[in-house]
């Protein structure tokens, strides 16, 4: 089949069709969507001022990524090629709105805090990217693993950024005071947009230093 013959864009050396563990490791670590591919940073910048918000956002992305990857993968052999992206977006949007509805019904306070960013997951490049690059070429189970791995990779980096920003920007973690207000003046640049850029850069640098150079980079 011609679709399978295409090399999948973002995973390069390719874990496609390989073992689940490789897929899991690539999504969450060696091809981390945020730290290596630098995708989906818009929401990563917006919701990381508090750790609690970031964790819910990470959970939302895992849910959407797993769900959309699974259904795109099931349909992969009969989606008309010309409208495949429209179908993907429809599936993604369905899962995002589902999550938003559940938040509004059962986690009202969190829904209030995150405001518009849950709905904006529809436009998150990670979700669309995984559907296009992975789920279209791989069987459902492997696609679920891939969706979970990428969601996890996103959530992990988000949490790292949020811990740093909440600690320096508010002196708290999960709303609990860590750096007492008596001697620590919250650094407001960390709670605003520029702080997110600085932190993202630092976190990506640390991540890459720990991970070490990739085999692909030698090319």
């Amino acid at each position: 089949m011609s679709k399978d013959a295409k090399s999948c864009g973002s995973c390069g050396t390719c874990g496609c069709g390989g073992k689940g563990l490789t897929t899991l490791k690539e999504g969450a670590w060696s091809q981390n969507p945020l730290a290596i591919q630098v995708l989906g940073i818009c929401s990563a910048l917006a919701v990381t001022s508090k750790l609690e918000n970031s964790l819910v956002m990470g959970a939302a992305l895992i849910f959407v990524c797993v769900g959309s990857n699974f259904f795109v993968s099931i349909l992969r052999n009969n989606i008309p090629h010309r409208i495949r992206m429209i179908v993907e977006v429809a599936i993604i949007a369905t899962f995002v709105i589902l999550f938003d509805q559940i938040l509004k019904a059962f986690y009202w306070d969190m829904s209030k805090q995150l405001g518009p960013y849950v709905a904006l997951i529809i436009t998150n490049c990670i979700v669309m990217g995984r559907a296009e690059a992975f789920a279209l070429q791989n069987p459902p189970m492997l696609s679920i693993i891939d969706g979970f791995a990428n969601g996890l990779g996103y959530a992990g980096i988000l949490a790292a950024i949020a811990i740093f920003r909440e600690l320096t920007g508010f002196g708290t973690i999960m709303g609990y005071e860590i750096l007492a207000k008596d001697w620590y003046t919250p650094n407001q640049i960390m709670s605003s947009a520029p702080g997110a850029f600085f932190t993202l850069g630092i976190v990506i640098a640390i991540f890459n230093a720990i991970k070490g150079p990739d085999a692909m980079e030698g090319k």
Partner: protein
Amino acid sequence: MKGSLYTLIYAAVVGIVCAATLTFAANFCRPYREKNEAAEKQINILLALNVPFDVDATADELLQIFDANIKQVEQNGMAIYNYEVNGKLDSLAVEFIGPGRNATVKGFLALEPDRKTIKGITFYQQEETPGLGGEIITAEFRDRFKGKSIYDEKGEPGFVVKKNADKLKNGVNAISSATQTCDKLGIMLTETLKSLSQEQVDE
């Protein structure tokens, strides 16, 4: 042509399945969501008026507390919520609505019986940027309003939310890096206060 027909039917089926799923989910969630929204509004009226209530109260309990304490009066199409203790007016609240930076902001402003001094402010709907404009919902920011006047030095109704505005009779300091939200908050409060004082003249 055969391919096009398949594509069309495929798109229609996907569309219908997605729409059906979402309709089902929305209908399933609606009672919970509406209860949350109603409770949110009542909690905010109670909070703004400083009515004592249990924070963990269920939506039904809240409704009882609300009905027992608050009397709603309509004046020129503006709802005013009166809180009476032993038949004496303790305070009153008015709703304010206006465009924020990201989306509509809704909240309540509570005034002392003299209708000149602010008793409290709450927000029950806002989608301002979390951590920035979203900080308007924090107690720290809302406490800045307590005891402030709704009239400026010349006796004109209005309110200012700007940098260093806490020196004014009718102003509070803005949140830094949330200038747009604060400016718009000032505008919507001023509009509400103007129509409120208008009504007093009409009475």
